[in-house]
């Protein structure tokens, strides 16, 4: 569904993405892991057109996304730290995004209901806690029934119950044939929801396998150990 071809991006002298090529197919949950600063967020932002790559191409359903915008109606994005206009209320933010994505055929308000966001509709975004902002981000990402979901450390600020709700939602959406990309550092969580793990290191793919393959290759029962083993071996 998404193909990244020879993608490079540098900030000043620092090469964040270095000739990165990778493909993601629908109906899968792909977990993107890697040390801090490996380029995980930059890669997601490139897919969304927030960050513009220096060279290379990104194809969504076979068509390049560079300098396009309509394809974003097929993508739901949950940023690592949701930044919202401080003096807008939750209701206004949701209404505005809905106004912009009027063409969406199906509106999915399940997460708004599960997180009880209606009760807080009149609170200003600036007065919300980090976790509540995350809930708003999650609700917005899933709202328009997109084909692709890009979730950047989705559970980092959520309480355990809310995180559980989100994980159930992810698995539910996967069954509908969606592609879900998750960046995360929590191995147990990855093991629960992901089918594949892609490891980024210094802007290139270190490995990209299914979870069972990774365990088999490393000859380990637990994913966290297997990944640690692979990383140490190749150093």
């Amino acid at each position, binding site marked *: 569904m998404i193909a990244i071809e020879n993608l490079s991006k540098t900030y000043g002298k620092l090469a964040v993405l270095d000739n990165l090529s990778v493909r993601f197919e629908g109906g899968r949950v792909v977990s993107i892991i890697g040390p801090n600063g490996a380029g995980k967020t930059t890669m997601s932002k490139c897919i969304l057109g*927030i960050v*513009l790559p220096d060279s290379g191409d990104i194809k969504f359903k076979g068509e390049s996304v560079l300098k396009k915008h309509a394809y974003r109606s097929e993508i739901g994005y949950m940023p690592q730290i949701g930044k919202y206009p401080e003096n807008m209320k939750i209701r206004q933010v949701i209404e*505005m995004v809905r106004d912009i994505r009027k063409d969406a055929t199906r509106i999915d308000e399940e997460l708004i209901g599960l997180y009880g966001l209606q009760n807080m509709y009149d609170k200003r975004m600036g007065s919300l806690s980090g976790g509540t902002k995350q809930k708003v981000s999650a609700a917005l990402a899933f709202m328009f029934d997109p084909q692709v979901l890009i979730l950047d450390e989705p559970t980092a600020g959520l309480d355990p119950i809310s995180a559980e709700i989100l994980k159930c939602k992810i698995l539910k959406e996967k069954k509908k044939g969606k592609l879900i990309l998750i960046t995360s550092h929590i191995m147990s969580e990855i093991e629960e929801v992901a089918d594949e793990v892609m490891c980024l290191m210094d802007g290139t793919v270190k490995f990209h396998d299914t979870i069972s393959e990774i365990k088999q290759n490393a000859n380990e029962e637990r994913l966290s150990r297997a990944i640690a083993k692979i990383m140490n071996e190749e150093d």
Partner: protein
Amino acid sequence: MNKIIKYVLYDIVRSKIVVAYTLFLLLLSIGLFNLGGSPDKGLLSLLNLVLLTVPLISIVFATTHFYNSYEFMELLVSQPIRRSRIFLSEYWGVALSLSAAFLLGVGVPVLLFAPGATGLYLVLTGLFVTFIFVALAFLASVITRDKAKGIGIALLLWFYFALIYDGIVLLILYSFGDYPLEYATLALTALNPVDLGRVMVLLNLDVSAMMGYTGALYKSIFGSAWGVGIAFLVLLLWVLVPLLTSRRAFTRRDL
């Protein structure tokens, strides 16, 4: 595009700075018209103050607004909208609200106290200056991510157009006083939108008689409909060049 302008306007109206700006202009206009005696004198004083304050407030307000809207823009860029549309919505939102403040604060008093061609030129000049300086502010804002630097650049631009430029022109005129400088002065005027607006309004007042040969040349050029048309075209260019340059920069950078 209107959808996004709506939210930008909503945000600006809530900040109440535009309301304060309107009241300030209103007070200034009514005060000057009541002080001056003749409406022409009032217009002249108003012209000088408007050409000093409108650029300053427009450029500072637009720059701070742009930096404060980063979150809003970040939210929008991951949605299916063109970036240039986000940018132009921001521009129209700021420029229209400041223009509305100017029309209320200066346009209405001028209509009441000194209706006529000169007053119309003054209002048109003020509106153009607003659009030009909001465009320059956006240009300053896309150059750097650092808010303090951006506001610094914006203030420098204002200093340059409102104060320094005139000094440079005077220096040139003084140093090359032995040569015929009529056309050179004309070109120099076109290079500063504030001066261009000032000259256009001044020529409609009686004071132009005191401006000597250059004044006579100006009068012969700006006195004709053709000349005024060219002058407004130059002002329009002063809006479009910074606006399109900054839009281009905004669509080609990371957010």
